[in-house]
């Protein structure tokens, strides 16, 4: 199985490295021809508005959307979660996504960079021990459709809880960035459990 990482902008090299640590040689995807070579896709962290704009410029937006709808296993972190959401709020006017997961995601939900943080988070379906999660101008999930499985939630002060890792069938999304830590359990989960 060939895994690709969308390499238009963002921390795609870190995702390729995380794949390598799991024993998988990923490839960079920027063109429709490269997209045809892959069986599964990772959408990296970065700036979602930039990624949409570049996906259109390089004519991969519609092809990726179709592949996702047709069942290609796909994982998105942070900006990648935004790209996989059916609905987004606090978005740029008219901002589009690939969609696929029946969720509403709030962009920059935790605030600006001054509010970015790291913490441990529990995700029993992914790992037996807590995952070290890094949230950078991160989104969260505001509304979850009935076929969506919540894998982890962030418990804020005052008892508010927001899903930050979700799965719907062949699609996986996290609001945090496992690729910039040395805990590869989310990537292993994607490769072993989602890419069947």
């Amino acid at each position, binding site marked *: 199985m060939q895994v690709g990482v969308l*390499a*238009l*902008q*963002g*921390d*795609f*090299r*870190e995702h390729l490295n995380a794949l390598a640590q799991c024993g998988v040689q990923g490839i960079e995807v*920027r063109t429709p021809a490269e997209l045809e070579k892959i069986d599964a896709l990772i959408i990296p*962290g*970065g*700036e979602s*508005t*930039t990624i949409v*704009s*570049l996906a259109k*410029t*390089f004519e991969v937006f519609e092809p990726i959307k179709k592949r996702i709808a047709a069942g290609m296993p796909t994982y998105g972190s*942070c*900006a990648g979660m935004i790209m996989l959401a059916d609905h987004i709020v*606090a*978005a*740029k006017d008219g*901002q589009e996504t690939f969609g696929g997961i029946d969720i509403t995601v709030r*962009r*920059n939900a935790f*605030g*600006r*960079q*001054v*509010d*970015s*943080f*790291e*913490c*441990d988070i529990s995700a029993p379906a992914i790992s037996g021990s807590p995952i*070290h999660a*890094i949230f*950078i*101008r991160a989104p969260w999930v505001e509304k979850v459709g009935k076929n969506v499985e919540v894998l982890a939630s962030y418990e804020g002060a005052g008892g508010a809880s927001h899903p930050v890792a979700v799965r719907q069938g062949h699609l996986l999304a996290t609001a945090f*960035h496992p690729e*910039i*830590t040395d805990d590869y359990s989310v990537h292993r989960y994607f490769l072993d459990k989602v890419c069947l």
Partner: protein
Amino acid sequence: MAQESGTSRVKRGMAEMLKGGVIMDVVNVEQAKIAEDAGAVAVMALERVPADIRAQGGVARMSDPDMIAAIQAAVSIPVMAKARIGHFVEAQILQSLGVDFIDESEVLTPTDYANHINKWDFTIPFVCGATNLGEALRRINEGAAMIRSKGEAGTGDVSNAMTHMRQIGGEIRRLTSMREDELYVAAKEMQAPFDLVKEVAANGKLPVVLFTAGGIATPADAALMMQMGADGVFIGSGIFKSGDPKRRAEACVKATTAFTDAKVIADASRGLGEAMVGINVADLPAPHRLSERGW
């Protein structure tokens, strides 16, 4: 671990997310929106672009908080702002405004001719300019989460950015070929902390993201810097001092992503209208060379 903000990982991680992108100088809401629509990964909010600071002279300072707040309200992408070298109160103000990144910048008039800001004191990340590896490591030692080559801002002449990228890259390659006992002298000579020198020698790269800035005016300039090993580019005066800012901004974004594909860069370069006029760095009298600011 309990929740923690402002850690090195959170700051450096923010810089990682900007990789492969273009950060554009903007002086008003309208320009910020053009930049966001063109696919900029962030905007740098400032009152005068470097070309105007050069033309108008005088002391260049942090921008008016109202102007920064208006741009923050207008776009959804990260907003950066500049503080003067060593002016930690300007930096405190920028942090209180919630800007996403502070550029401790030689483009503004320096405040302290011996010390830079202690960037560890802050929750938000800093980017600093460097002309060589020693300078880059001194800034990282003070807490910078991102380094950019300085180039010569506001000229449209990319030659200094090239010199700085070659210098930093060359010094990194040299370190990787040294024995550990030779690294002590290397650290002494480049006036950089030994631990950082050792880390660079082991990894063959800086411990933080390296962008390029200064004089970038065309898609070809942006792609050149990416091929020289930059993780992304800052474009200051080059976009909004040109004939058709919208098209030029889009073209530079495209070339920065497809930086090894000459056909794409050629297409991006077609019919962009007039580039910024520019000044040759060699014609600048030494006291007006910004890249020499920083210690």
